[in-house]
Every structure is written in structure tokens, then in C-alpha cells.
């Protein structure tokens, strides 16, 4: 039994596997299959200050080895999260990452401040949602704006702060450096890649939002590349994600430089994916005589 514990922004996780925001709700839908304490943590559904209705359906399109979504941050708002979801989640014995998003810098800061003193272990500031008109990726595609929103949330919050980055940029390294310089304790990447499908019979986009975020195994090589580039350029830890579906994928993205791993779309195909990945990583580490999973972080030997 290898030691699977990892540390991210000063928070210790029992293992590196975390269901990604928007793919796991608040855990309620999956705890009939296995206890949530098996997970390193849960990054909860993206939470905004006020309730959001989300986008007009269809919101889902299948793609070769992946999918597009344009859910549009549908959620019950911060009060419901704090009063209803958080007390329940706090009893489950897993780390709670509050994924937050806002339309303005002030809104992000206000939301972060509301989580002070709660059971939340870490904030994941989403500056990369491709499916909302305000905030979202508009924050995450400009170094100055990304830095400013990071600083505002850092100043407002007493929690460790992770910032979730968009891959839909010219240089994700520059964005990562900017959020690091403005007080982020960690970064998570990648959010979805902007994509589109068209129904050639109707000539209509499959998604009502026309475009949406691509995730699933199709994006995995992009995620590995970006994690590797970012991890090599900043000092704060990286939480890697994007198409991770197997234990081998998780090991690979950790070798690229990730200190922990989020698993998203793979859960839709197999709800047991997170626990299968944890068990598979443990087996792989044992078989390779590696005592702690931390030994593989950034262990890639590039040419």
C-alpha cells in the first residue's frame, strides 16, 4: 500500500483524486455507490453569489472520445450552498473545494468572503468558464484581469486559493504567472476547450448556446502539455485535469507536474472512475516500488 497523500496549497488530501467541478454535483448523486471519504476531495458544482438558471438546452453534445457542454453555471447560489450543501458535505470525510465564479471582480470577492469561517477547505476560483457571457473566461484570458480578480479574492478570503485556468488562451503560462504573482496558492488546469458541433441535417448547432466546452479523453494530451508547461514556469502547485480517465492517465499528468488530479467527464461514462483510478494508482505504485505518490510529481524526463 503506497502512501497516496498529497498536499496542495497547504491542504493535505488522503489521495490525489478529486472529482472536478460540475461533474459531481455535491456528491449526493454518487454516495449510493461508494463512500465519499474514498475521494481525496470534491470540487463542488460552480457556485455563484446568486442562483443561476443556466443555459437553454440542448446543453450536451457527444464528440469523438469526449463531449461538449454548455450548462452555463446553473446552481442554487451561495446561500443555498452554505446552508444546505455544505453542512451535509462536511460530514463526509473528504476535502471540500468550493468552486466559485462571478460576473464581476467585486462579486467574486464578496462570494469568497462569504465562505470565510465555513467548512470549505479550499477555494477554486473559476476564471475560465466558457459558457457564461460575463465573468467566466473573460477573466481568464487576460493576464491583467486574471491577476486583478485573483488579488481581490485573495484579499477577501482566509482560505487557500486555487485559480482554475482556461486553455483558450495564447499563453496559459503567462496567465499562471499573473495569478501566482497576485497571491494564488495553486492553479488548476485545464478547464474545457471551446468547441462546436453542427447538425448537418438541420444546419443548427447541436448546442443551443452554439458553442460549448470540450472535455473527455479527447483533450487529455492538451492538458498534459499545459500542465507540464505551467508546472515548469511557476512555484505554486498545479492541480491537473482534462480528460483523465484511468490510473495511468492520472500518473501521466502527475509526472507532467500535477500535485493532485481532478477527474471530470470520465465519471459520466463510469461513476466508479474516481475510485478505480485511486485503486489503480496504488497498484501501479506498489508494482513499481514507489512508496509515495509524491515521488512521481513532475517526474517526467523531457528530452
Amino acid at each position, binding site marked *: 500500500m503506497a502512501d497516496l497523500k498529497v498536499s496542495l496549497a497547504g491542504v493535505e488530501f488522503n489521495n490525489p483524486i478529486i472529482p472536478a467541478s*460540475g461533474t459531481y454535483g455535491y456528491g449526493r*448523486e*454518487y454516495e449510493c455507490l461508494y463512500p465519499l471519504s474514498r475521494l481525496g476531495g470534491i470540487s463542488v458544482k460552480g457556485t455563484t453569489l446568486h442562483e443561476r438558471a*443556466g443555459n437553454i438546452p440542448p*446543453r450536451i453534445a457527444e464528440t469523438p472520445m469526449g463531449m461538449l457542454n454548455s*450548462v452555463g453555471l446553473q446552481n442554487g447560489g451561495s446561500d443555498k450552498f452554505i446552508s444546505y450543501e455544505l453542512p451535509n458535505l462536511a460530514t463526509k470525510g473528504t476535502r471540500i473545494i468550493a468552486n466559485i465564479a462571478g460576473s464581476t471582480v467585486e462579486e467574486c470577492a464578496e462570494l469568497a468572503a462569504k465562505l470565510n469561517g465555513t467548512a470549505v477547505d479550499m477555494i477554486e476560483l473559476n476564471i475560465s468558464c466558457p459558457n457564461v457571457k460575463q465573468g467566466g473566461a473573460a477573466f481568464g484570458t487576460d493576464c491583467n484581469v486574471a491577476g486583478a480578480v485573483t488579488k481581490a479574492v485573495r484579499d477577501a478570503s482566509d482560505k487557500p486559493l486555487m485559480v482554475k485556468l482556461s486553455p483558450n488562451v495564447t499563453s496559459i503560462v503567462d496567465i499562471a504567472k499573473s495569478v501566482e504573482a497576485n497571491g494564488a496558492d495553486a492553479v488548476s488546469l485545464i478547464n474545457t476547450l471551446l468547441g462546436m458541433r453542427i447538425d448537418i441535417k438541420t444546419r443548427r448547432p447541436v448546442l443551443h448556446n452554439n458553442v460549448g466546452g470540450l472535455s473527455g479523453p479527447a483533450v487529455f494530451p492538451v492538458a498534459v502539455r499545459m500542465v507540464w508547461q505551467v508546472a515548469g514556469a511557476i512555484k505554486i502547485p498545479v492541480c491537473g485535469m482534462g480528460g483523465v480517465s484511468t490510473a495511468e492517465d492520472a500518473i501521466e499528468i502527475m509526472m507532467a507536474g500535477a500535485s493532485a488530479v481532478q477527474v471530470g467527464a470520465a465519471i*459520466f461514462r463510469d*461513476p*466508479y472512475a474516481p475510485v478505480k483510478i485511486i485503486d489503480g494508482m496504488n497498484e501501479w505504485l506498489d508494482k513499481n516500488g514507489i512508496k509515495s505518490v509524491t515521488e512521481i510529481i513532475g517526474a517526467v524526463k523531457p528530452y
Partner: protein
Amino acid sequence: MYRQGLYPIIRKCASAKGIFDITVLCPEAAELAEPGQFAQLLAPSHFLRRPISICQIDKAAGTLRLVFEVRGEGTAELAELNVGDNLDMIAPLGKGFTKVPGKAVCVGGGIGVPPMLGIASLYGEDAAAISGFRNAAAAILQEDFKALGCRTVLCTDDGSAGVHGFVTTALEEHLQSEKPDIIYACGPMVMLKAVAGIAEKYGVRCQVSLEQRMACGVGACLGCAAKIERDGKEIFAHVCKDGPVFDAKEVCFNG
């Protein structure tokens, strides 16, 4: 409450062209299942699962019967599975039909007919099954309804079998002679809208089963939104968890 696992296919029947009829041995899922719920089936070479309505539940035998139409590559792959093959399935999912005391009319259109069989089985001779298909060759499950004791009305678009015309005409004729306690419906959105309108006109409660592009199937991803009106407010509910069955009065049929 649902289960996920690999379950053997124990029966596969030829049905109408492009329609496949399989029975899966899955006692743990069958035990939990209710009419109107659905299953998420994995087609191995596709990323997302396919939501398929549950046609019949046999708790004693521990089986679920699934009748589906080949609509694309994913369902075509599922259709190639044979008796003895294992099916990767998550079931039962969603909120099914509500059984009420008295008589029911079950209105199905095309591949919306299979879930009608499950709910009709709770009523037997107290149910009338009105089923619509493109033509005689596409008609399915009529003998199954009769075996339950249901009265059946078969409608075809081209008149090649049964009544020439739509299920909505047959439903109105039925309601003129007899008032049921509930109408259940599954089929194309345009049919559901018309059925809901007729139910309202005759003052009969109506439940409809909706479809939407879906990812997780369990209520986590919020992908399969359907606009409904609840407590005077329009909201996006989710077909996989809040549905697929909704009270027709709640559904915003105009989007």
C-alpha cells in the same frame, strides 16, 4: 437509488425494423425499478452512455426489458449485443410514473411506446393503450399490451394497420366515451404537447415522459435541462433526476 454493473443479456427478440428488444438479468436493479424510469447503457466505442427507457420490470425474475430504436452509431453498437453478452448498465434512473387508483390511458408514439407497457402493467384491464406508429411494419408491443388485459388502439400514419391517423384523435375519441383517472404519454414533443392539451380540455391528470441530450444520467452534471413551471416560476429541471416523467401541467412545451 441505482446500481451500475455488467449484466448479462438473457433474451433478445427481433422486433420491428431497427427496433431491438432485449431482456437483462439484473436482480439488484430490477428490485429498485419502477415504470417510467430509464437505464444508461454503455456502447463501448462511444464516450457517453445512451439513456433507454425501461419497458418492463420483472422483479421475481430479476430482469429488465429494454426496447430501443437504432438512431445512430451508439445504439447500432448496442443492437449488436447478443444473448450471453454483458451489458454495462446504470439503472434504474430518474423519477417514473405515478400510479393512481382507477383507470389509465397510456399514449405512446413510436419509440415512446415501450415505457407505456411498464405503467400499463400496473393497471391491466383498467388501462387502454393508444399507440401510434409510422406504418404497420413499425408497430411494436401490441400483443404485449393485450396479454396484460389492456384495451389497445393502434394508429398508423399511413393507415397500413389499425386506425389511419394520429394518437391524439384516438385519445379524444376515447375521452368522449370514458373519463380515465390519468393519462400517461411518451413520444415526440409535438405529440406530448397535443396530448397535454387534450388532457387539460377534458380535465384529466396527465404525466409525460421527456427526452433530452444527457450526460451523467444521475443529476450531477445538469446537462439534460427541461423548462418547467413550478410554483409560478419557470426553471430548468433535469430530465434524468427530476424526470423523465413530469406532470404535463408543469412542462413548458414552447421552450
